[in-house]
């Protein structure tokens, strides 16, 4: 009986995860955690960056951030980034998938912490923001 309940619970979890937005909150990063991942992307070349949370109303499955810096001559935008709250994957505004050693390390920790079934992890990791 206990095994049956466990199987049913696992099945319900998988069914409920049709989109990144349907992932239970306990298996999602907080806004601050996601922001720190964007920091790992932009801080490589921008030591004093400013990162702020923002909304993309037509794309509720990702957490979005703007990164700015006080450029004296050029535009002050560093970029916009969408973070998959279930996997920690980071995409820029045109769906360029961000990657560097520090980010990959952090993502490995997230994968370990949430311990999603492999198939689900792969599916969620492949999701892109609207771009």
């Amino acid at each position, binding site marked *: 009986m206990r095994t049956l309940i466990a199987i049913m619970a696992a099945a319900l979890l998988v069914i409920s995860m049709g989109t990144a937005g349907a992932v239970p909150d306990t298996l999602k990063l907080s806004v601050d955690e996601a922001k720190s991942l964007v920091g790992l992307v932009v801080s490589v070349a921008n030591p004093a960056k400013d990162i702020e949370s923002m909304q993309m109303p037509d794309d509720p499955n990702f957490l979005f951030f703007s990164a700015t810096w006080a450029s004296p001559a050029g535009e002050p935008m560093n970029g916009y980034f969408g973070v998959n709250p279930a996997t920690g994957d980071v995409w820029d505004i*045109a769906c360029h998938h961000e990657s560097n050693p520090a980010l990959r390390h952090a993502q490995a920790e997230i994968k370990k912490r949430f311990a999603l079934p492999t198939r689900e992890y792969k599916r969620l990791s492949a999701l892109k923001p609207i*771009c």
Partner: protein
Amino acid sequence: MDNCDRQNPRNARYLNWIDMYGPAAASVAAGLKTSEENILGLSAIESAWGQGPFARDGRNNFFSLHYPSPLSTGFVTTADGKVKVSTYLNFASSAKAFAVAYGHLVTGQPSAHTFAASLQNAGKYGINRDGTKVPSFVPDVMSVASGFEERLKCGR
């Protein structure tokens, strides 16, 4: 895939942008002898489709232009308060200000690659704090401009 099907969220985002800003972008593009999709693409990227901190809430700075600039209605500051960024009445004013400020860099460049590369090579867009180029800037502009090019055929 039908690029004109607004049921697709990606199409809807591009087509709505064209509906709202296409005429103003076309006007500025014609003056600069560049393509409408380049102006639309850069504005979408720089403003995060209107949701970025310098465009939303009526600020209407779709090209991340500094203050002072022509046609600006005022300014906001960057998060650290060190740089003033212009605000505008609407997209058309913002696009005209872009043309005045940086039009000389992109005049006669219909290709998205040379359009974006010229802006980056001049140090105006896609530059990191350490002075290096943001590697994804040019490909990003090309990608989004291409998305507009495909959907401008949908008609208005």
